[in-house]
């Protein structure tokens, strides 16, 4: 099965501004990638490049094994933009019915009810969008993104307008998508959320990738380790590079090393280290 996303050296320049520089990454089927960065880092540009909404000035890639911009592949992709507003004069059900027709979905009414139920909007499905709160509009956007059972879903700040209950619902939803084998590309500022649902993260700053990898690998050992002796009392904080020498010296000196524990920091701490100006 081809990667859900595979891009090489993807870049976008607006005049002299490097909106995104040399993005190379892969997302496997069923994997959830957290795409992080401060405001203006190039996150939404990256999503739009991947979806063919913006033309790249460099690089290439594939979504679901087909070249970027391939029209037929979009049938298998869901997208929740960061900023959008559906026409207020339509109901949620009408918005979804329109998208179902664009997708040529068979059994559209059943699919529509299913996604409305999944995002918790079924009871308000026939209300005009104009009467929806921001959170409800975001839920509708999620429902549109989920329509047609996509293999790859792009969620750009999916919880920015949601209350804690809604955020919890979205986390559960992402878990369900992963369980179904749907790859998720998640842009979010809520790092705690990303840490809880994503397998890997890619951090961009100023259009450049500053870190990429599995969350565990990114966090564990980032600040070295704590060497614990078996007396349960003494310990030594060391950098990753110092670990072998320190352990060797301790053992040579007759000490009994009980454990070497990598120091764990949060994704937020690691993120701030990487993107905060020195």
């Amino acid at each position: 099965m081809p990667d859900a996303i595979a891009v090489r050296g993807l870049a976008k320049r607006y005049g002299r501004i490097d909106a995104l520089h040399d993005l190379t990454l892969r997302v496997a089927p069923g994997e959830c990638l957290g795409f992080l960065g401060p405001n203006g880092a190039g996150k939404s540009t990256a999503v739009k490049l991947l979806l063919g909404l913006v033309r790249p000035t460099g690089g290439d890639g594939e979504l679901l094994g087909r070249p970027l911009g391939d029209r037929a592949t979009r049938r298998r992709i869901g997208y929740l933009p960061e900023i959008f507003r559906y026409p207020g004069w339509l109901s949620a059900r009408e918005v979804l019915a329109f998208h179902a027709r664009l997708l040529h979905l068979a059994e559209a009414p059943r699919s529509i009810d299913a996604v409305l139920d999944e995002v918790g909007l079924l009871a308000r499905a026939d209300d005009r969008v104009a009467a929806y709160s921001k959170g409800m509009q975001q839920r509708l956007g999620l429902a549109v993104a989920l329509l047609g059972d996509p293999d790859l879903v792009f969620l750009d700040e999916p919880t920015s307008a949601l209350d804690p209950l809604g955020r919890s619902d979205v986390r559960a939803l992402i878990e369900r998508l992963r369980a179904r084998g749907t790859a998720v590309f998640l842009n979010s500022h809520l790092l705690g959320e990303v840490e809880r649902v994503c397998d890997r993260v890619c951090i961009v700053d100023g259009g450049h990738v500053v870190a990429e990898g599995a969350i565990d690998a990114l966090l564990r050992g980032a600040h070295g380790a704590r060497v614990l002796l078996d007396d349960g009392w003494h310990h030594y904080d060391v950098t990753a590079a110092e670990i072998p020498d320190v352990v060797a010296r301790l053992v040579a000196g007759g000490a009994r090393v009980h454990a070497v524990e990598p120091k764990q920091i949060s994704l937020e701490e690691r993120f701030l280290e990487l993107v905060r100006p020195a």
Partner: protein
Amino acid sequence: MTAFLIAGLTLRELARRRLVTAVAVLTLAIVAFTLWGTLRLAGASVHGEALPTAGLRGAAAGIVILLAFLFSFVLALGAALVAAPAMGESVANGEILTLLARPIRRADVVFGRWLGTLAALILYVAVTGGIKLAVVRFATGYLPPHPLAALAFLAGLATVVTTASIALATRLPVLAAGIVAALLFGFAWIGGILEAIGLALGNTGLADAGTVITLAFPTDALWRGALYALQPAVMTAAVTTMPAATPNPFSVAAPPPGALIAWACGWVLAVFAAGVASFRTRDL
């Protein structure tokens, strides 16, 4: 076909907005006023005697032309200000991102928006124009020589303005696109007057400048087509024998030549294609 889906959405959008109600109320008011005025005209007397038939028909013809002239302005402004949001609003509010993430072509979006807006405007021309002509006929017994041709030319005028407004809205903000399209219509109207004055006075430079403007935005040529179709034969004969009387937008000596109508058709196709190309290459 996707474009028809989008055209249907555009039509539903126009139907559900208060715009349709407002236009319907204003149209009814104008129709009622026209009915009242033309009935008063039909019942008018000079020195205690009813107006002669020829006089009544002449006055009715003048009213029809004046109504059509005002209608062409309302139509052009309406086309400019309805088409621009139809195309540009979904870009401004981000809805277009969700549409273009679907397996559709950008050209389908432009064509669908154009088609939906134009269908609404042509319906408006047919219904409103038809009712106004019927009212004048009812009150005075007068019907212009070629009413359907006149409505077709007015629909053509709406097509030109709609196409310009849609093409502009593929790049410009909604309000700017609508206003620029409306200004182009006004510019073309002035160009038509300049051309007529230049021809009447034998001033080649003025006439050529007017011709260039007419070719650049061919609404005035289409208005003259509508005018010729509405003008009674006797009025056309008078204009033809007195060319100095032509520099005004209410009478015309001849219909626009076939080549000019073909130019207008080609213009619509070219500007539409430019709009599609502009939207296809736009980063959203």
